[in-house]
């Protein structure tokens, strides 16, 4: 497994090996799917759309539909206006979405298609049916990563849809960050628990985790309603979860509509969840119910009970920057030590922030799994945490492996159970201790196998 990888760490400036990120459009596509009645549209070669749909499908094991401008060489030379215009006509006729969310690709970005103008012309020429909406986000693949794409799509919701004006409702806008539908469901549970009115944007729950019941709905019941996206402009406060994924939307909502914005870490682990719950409580001027306190207390109890197994265990973490940031804090809360934490997404500021809070951790943004793997060869760890692709490293180095983040192509639990919130943290404590225990049960000599753990 990964037999070409040696322990010799060379600086690489040009070659990416085994990336820990992918490109913007897939994030934009995912965010768009979290809007009720929305068709994401990929403006570029049809290969992009095919890859994104395939990849999201493998992660969610759910239908993922999106349209494409199906560029050919001609469009690449003469511009994509004709393709996009014709696409919009077809989409609204055949698939009847409420809204089309166009995102660009490196192809259309390089040729410089001016999407707002194309949309405007389409509207003017009557290609967009009455009452239907088209929005867009620029998501060049050569900037940022899939997280940036998600962020840009969220910002587009605000820019295109959030209403301005002085009306203020006692409602909170929550931008969930690039997390799973199960996480979005949990974020809603927490917000409901705290008793606040809220708009979650986007919300892929009940879109990318629909029942198996013999019916296929191209636009499932879930997803943020367009009316709610408009309403965002009238909310009191917005809370953006995950600085990388949500700052753009929060900032934009503040600038455009004067909605006071807050950025919090993704609610993974105790303190990050506390921060989110407390922010909701403060924003909504409500109280945290006792049962949620009790749920929290059960998490702390579990951490306390398991602390001996976690104490000073060395962890290698990789994933998306917001996830990694919260995970560094969470493993620290658990008494473990983050030895190395990398993300594929570029982010010098992120790197500095991580180094400031975790000075003993090897931190790298714009890095890759090959680097992580080589580093581990030189600095053995007790646990690897990250997405599906980590399993090759885990196997090559025989390290216990706990999955989290995107993508998850080879397991099923993330579809049903959250990573965020106290429940998500309990789930992680279970997964981490199971990883250690399973290994011990298997590999320790007979006389060291424990009945009680």
């Amino acid at each position, binding site marked *: *497994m*990964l*037999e*070409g990888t*040696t322990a010799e760490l*060379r600086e690489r*400036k*040009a*070659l*990416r*090996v*085994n*990336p820990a990120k*992918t*490109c913007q459009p897939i994030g934009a596509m995912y965010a768009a799917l979290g809007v009720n009645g929305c068709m994401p*549209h990929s403006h*570029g*070669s*049809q*290969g*992009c759309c*095919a*890859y994104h749909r*395939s990849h999201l*499908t493998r992660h969610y*094991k759910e*239908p993922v*539909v999106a*349209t*494409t*401008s*199906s*560029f*050919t*060489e001609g469009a*690449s030379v003469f511009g994509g206006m004709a*393709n996009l215009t*014709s*696409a*919009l*006509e*077809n*989409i609204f*006729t*055949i*698939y009847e979405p409420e809204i089309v969310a166009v995102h660009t690709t*490196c*192809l259309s*970005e*390089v040729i410089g298609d001016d999407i707002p103008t194309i949309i405007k012309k389409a509207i003017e020429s009557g290609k967009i049916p009455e009452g239907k909406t088209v929005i867009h986000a620029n998501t*060049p*693949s*050569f*900037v940022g990563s899939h997280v940036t794409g998600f962020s840009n799509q969220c910002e587009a919701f605000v820019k295109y849809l959030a209403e301005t004006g002085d009306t203020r409702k006692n409602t909170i806008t929550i931008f969930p960050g690039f997390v799973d539908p199960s996480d979005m469901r949990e974020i809603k549970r927490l917000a409901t628990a705290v008793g606040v009115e809220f708009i979650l944007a986007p919300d892929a729950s009940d879109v990318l985790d*629909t029942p*198996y019941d*013999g019916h296929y709905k191209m636009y499932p019941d879930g997803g943020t309603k367009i009316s709610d996206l408009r309403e965002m402009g009238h909310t009191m406060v917005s809370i953006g979860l995950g600085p990388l994924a949500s700052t753009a939307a929060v900032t934009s909502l503040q600038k455009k509509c004067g909605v006071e914005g807050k950025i919090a870490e993704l609610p993974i682990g105790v303190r990050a969840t506390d921060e989110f719950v407390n922010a909701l409580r403060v924003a909504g001027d409500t109280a945290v119910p006792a049962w949620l306190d009790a749920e929290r207390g059960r998490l702390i109890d579990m951490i306390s009970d398991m602390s001996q197994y976690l104490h000073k265990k060395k962890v290698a973490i990789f994933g998306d920057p917001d996830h990694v940031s919260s995970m560094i804090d969470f493993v620290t809360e658990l008494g473990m030590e983050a030895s190395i934490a990398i993300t594929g997404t*570029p982010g010098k500021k992120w790197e500095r922030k991580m180094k400031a809070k975790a000075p003993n951790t090897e931190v790298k943004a714009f890095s890759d799994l090959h680097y992580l793997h080589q580093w581990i060869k030189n600095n053995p760890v007790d646990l690897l945490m990250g997405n599906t*692709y980590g399993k*090759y490293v885990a196997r090559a180095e025989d390290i216990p492996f706990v999955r989290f983040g995107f993508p998850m192509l080879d397991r099923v639990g993330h579809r049903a159970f959250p990573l965020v919130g106290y429940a998500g943290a309990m789930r992680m404590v279970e997964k981490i201790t199971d990883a250690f225990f399973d290994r011990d049960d298997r590999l320790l000599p007979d006389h060291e196998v424990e009945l009680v753990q």
Partner: protein
Amino acid sequence: MGPTGPSAAEAREKMLDIYPKKTLRKRSKQMMVNENPSTPAEIGANSRTVPGIITQRGCSYAGCKGVVIGPIYDILHITHGPIGCGYYSWLSRRNFTKIRNEGETNYLQYSMSTDMQENHIVFGGETLLKDAIQEAYDEFKPKAISVYATCPVGLIGDDIHAVCKEMKAKLGINIFGFSCEGYKGVSQSAGHHIANNGVFKNMIGLDDTPSKGEYTINILGEYNIGGDAWEIDRILALCGIKIIGTLSGGVTYDEICNAHMADLNVVMCHRSINYMAEMMETKFGIPWFKVNFIGLEGTKKSLRKIAQYFGEKKLIDRVEEVIAAEMSEVRPVIEDVKTRTNGKTAALFVGGSRAHHYQDLFEDMEMKVIAAGYEFAHRDDYEGREVLPSIKVDADSRNIEELTIEEDPERFNLRKTVDRKKSLEESGFAFSDYEGMLKQMKKDTLVIDDISHHEMEKLIELYKPDVIGSGVKDKYVIEKMGVPCKQLHSYDYGGPYAGFKGAINFFKEIDRMTSSRVWELTRAPWHEADEAPEATVSEEVTA
């Protein structure tokens, strides 16, 4: 069971109904009722997908790197471009690969890319590519490096071939590039052609070491998805036939360089590799014919045809022995499975050859293929190679390089194939031929090229087939509607499905899928208040 629902013509109308005029015109050509299987009508194929239509198709890069070259395991593959393309083509095709020798590296486990950033788009990416090749060499010391261009590379004008040439000279290993930008052509198909050209120019013919086997062949267009190639290897080895190179499943760089020393090329996936077969015949005089190791009949016929080609009784007898032995294992399985699959229906919308090949397997199971179509095929894949001369090359295909190949003066006559071919042809043996899908399909079945999401939904609504063979993007759409879907690109988790053991796997798999009882779980008792009894209350049970 069985094809209930409207006639194919009616169904076609219903599918087309919704389209705007231009789209309707386009789609009408690509959807046909197979009225005269023996003299198929013309179908629209290898034409652009209408923008805004939800299609199964991918791009040229996917066809070149993803399908044809990617599986060569000891070439270090570098995608030149932003991160996405290299990332998505990382391990996602289930091309099974086993390292042959200690010390080799299987580069399929690695995704390497230049991860282009904005400044490279602005200032050009050639230096970046050069550095990446150098770093790859320093890090891995591969025997060959292959470079793939993605959309922006072509647009900004990076000359990847010049860079490859320079680095090849510098590092002393084979380094070559593919200009397979995603916007080229109308589907993966363009990428196959580009890949064929590149393999032919940069690998084929590099190593003249004579091959050792008595009957040596290459398998072209077999990518070892789920281990298909290994099952074919197994069967051919039993027959005493030696495979020089399988293009390009589970293959090494060296094998491809040596492939021109084989006596015969047999072609599995006509669509993706017929270029290569043609070019190798032109240059080296290696005849080719189409085979199909998918399905019992196809496998038997293919083996017999190969034996007939070599024409030696020893081999002909051996092939019959192998078939008999293998069939004794298959027979009880198919006899059992057939009792459940007989009369069930299937629809196949996939690839450029599988929608055809797999009809054999369904026939083995006595299932009816009520509709089929390719994702990226050309007219010849539907209508047969005889239509080739009549295919008009359009703008999208014209920009794919067509190599001019000439007879290699020294190596053309290395084997006595030319005469053998001639005499066989005289006896009615078909070379360089492919009949296409339509001839095999039943009368009045529905044939849909580049099927769209809408058409697929409609098809299920109208016919509810017992199983659909398709790809991952459709899979869960189909399954939500209660129809099991078998991915025939990647086989999902399964395979091999080729050869005899593969057929057993496939029979069992389709049997499982079409007999699944998960469906029964879908309805909760409170939704069938009238029919179902009130919540069953168990009788009292005590110790």
